[in-house]
């Protein structure tokens, strides 16, 4: 190997070393630290912490709420992407730009916006309150907050695929006599499906971990409206590190599963996509 290339390789190794150090320090080490800490008391003890009534409720509650959000988000997100790509209407550009707002606004501010809009003192909150439906400090408020913070995920992953999708496939189906309904379910949906799943997985993991907006709108009543992240925070605040760790490890594990799932979708769509 000649001298020039050797120097090249040396530079490469230095840069790689720096990158690996950073990832190691900020991601790998903290994950290992929290996992070891959680398993320090043994698996039975960890299991006991996870299955404490309050902890278990918060986990179940979080997953159920996130699933409800997911169904709404998949439908509305795909519809929004479809409308933004396929149709022309006034204000389209502005709306397209504003889709990202939930990513830009701090979650605490999101929570407060929802309180202004749907809180007991607001018009909407008052109207529903008269009919016995509590939005803020209850489930609808939490779901609303989650839909808001995760709204862009599905839209933004489906949009580019719809833009790139060749219209001739649909036109071919049309000439073969397929109805609009059939075309959507047999041609469009299979094409955008991986991107819908990607958006869904991203919003699901975000929803499982969301804290800022929920802590403000949820009321956080244990065994009633307390989500997992709020429960963990409460345990840390009251110095019950061990019981917080159990729930935290479950959330961390779910994040990893979502990551693996995302990788899987990506590989799968690379294989069959192009």
């Amino acid at each position, binding site marked *: *190997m*000649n*001298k*020039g*290339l050797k*120097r090249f390789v040396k530079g490469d190794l230095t840069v790689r070393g720096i990158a690996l150090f950073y990832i190691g320090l900020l991601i790998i080490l903290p994950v290992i630290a929290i996992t070891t800490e959680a398993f320090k008391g043994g698996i039975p003890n960890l299991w006991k912490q996870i299955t404490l009534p309050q902890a278990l409720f918060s986990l179940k509650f979080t997953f159920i709420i996130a699933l409800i959000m997911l169904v709404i988000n998949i439908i509305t997100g795909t519809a929004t992407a479809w409308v933004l790509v396929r149709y022309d209407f006034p204000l389209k550009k502005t709306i397209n730009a504003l889709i990202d707002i939930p990513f830009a606004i701090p979650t605490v501010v999101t929570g407060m916006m929802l309180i202004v809009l749907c809180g007991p003192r607001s018009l909407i909150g008052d109207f529903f309150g008269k009919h016995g439906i509590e939005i803020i400090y209850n489930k609808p408020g939490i779901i609303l907050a989650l839909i808001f913070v995760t709204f862009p995920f599905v839209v933004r992953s489906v949009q580019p695929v719809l833009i790139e999708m060749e219209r001739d496939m649909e036109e071919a189906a049309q000439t073969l006599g397929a109805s609009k309904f059939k075309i959507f379910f047999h041609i469009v949906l299979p094409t955008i499906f991986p991107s819908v799943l990607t958006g869904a997985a991203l919003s699901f993991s975000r929803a499982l971990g969301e804290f800022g907006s929920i802590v403000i709108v949820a009321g956080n009543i244990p065994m009633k409206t307390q989500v997992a992240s709020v429960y963990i925070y409460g345990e840390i605040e009251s110095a019950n590190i061990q019981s917080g760790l159990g729930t935290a490890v479950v959330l961390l594990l779910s994040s990893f599963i979502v990551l693996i799932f995302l990788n899987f979708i990506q590989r799968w769509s690379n294989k069959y996509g192009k």
Partner: protein
Amino acid sequence: MSGIMVKNITKKFGDFVAVNNVSFDVREGELAALLGPSGSGKSTLLRVIAGLENPDMGQIFLTGKDVTPLRTQKRNVGFVFQHYALFKHMTVEKNIAFGLEIQKKDKKEIKQKVEELIDLVKLNGYNKHYPSQLSGGQRQRVALARALATEPKVLLLDEPFGSLDAKVRKNLAQWIRDLHSRVNVTSVFVTHDQNEAIEISDKIIVINRGKVEQIGNATDVYEHPKSKFVASFVGNVNVINANIKKNYIVITGTKEKIQFKEKTGINFQNIVLLIRPEDIIIKDNSTEDTVPCIINGIYYRGSFYEVDLKVGTNNVKSLVPKENFFKFEWQKGEKVYVRFRKFKIFEASEGHKKVHEMLKQLGYIE
């Protein structure tokens, strides 16, 4: 010696030998073509000369100096990439000036040189354009100007016309030929297109599977191919299976014989005759040196006719000038006679040294 000298270069990628013990030289001021099919190792060889790849064995000499241990940056070669590799975020003049700026040349000097080059490649008025605003041919010319700016000792071009459409390609090839005679820098270009190689190069180096098959000028390579590969890769060629019996070549599937010029007295099974379409002459009547055959198809090709013939079990093509064709008015299915004006004999399978030597002595192969 000056120019480029490639000595015993071998380059492997894992187990794959991309370039296998290749040697050749290009004299100063020569324009040489590295011709070969895709995957033959010609681009790798060019990258080894530039220092972008490190050879596993062998040496590279540029203007008489061994540059093998030198880094790419220090070799002072000009390189034109297949897809131009222009800096997309720089204007035409910034692209051309890049190498000079790296050399920390005087600003005035750079400006003057850039103007000269823009003039040379006829891109006047395009100074402030970005690569995305140019056509393929224009980008190619910017890439060329950029490579020439640092006044390199040698100019290397990787498939320089590969991504252009046919018409632009033809014009640009001719233009590069002219430019080369003006700038006169030792140049090597890689191509898979035999016409390009024949049209513009002083010297053609035919490469196949990492090995040099033949080195020579266009006439050498076309008229006197040294191997079956060269004969079939450079230009169109008919392959006729035959055997050698005593003083005759017997075409497979017929009893027809072609007599050798001299008496050989050898026998050999399974040889092939390679004959260019223009060397198959169709005749109406039989003579001593003709072979009977059937016309299978006649196709109008503008300035000539292409005639499909069946000789024994072999299908061959002949090119007939229009005036000859009109003289005889052949029909499909007609029985005619052909004379092979010129042909080469090779073994159908390799590894028979004996017949090779004999045929060589008789002048049928080189």
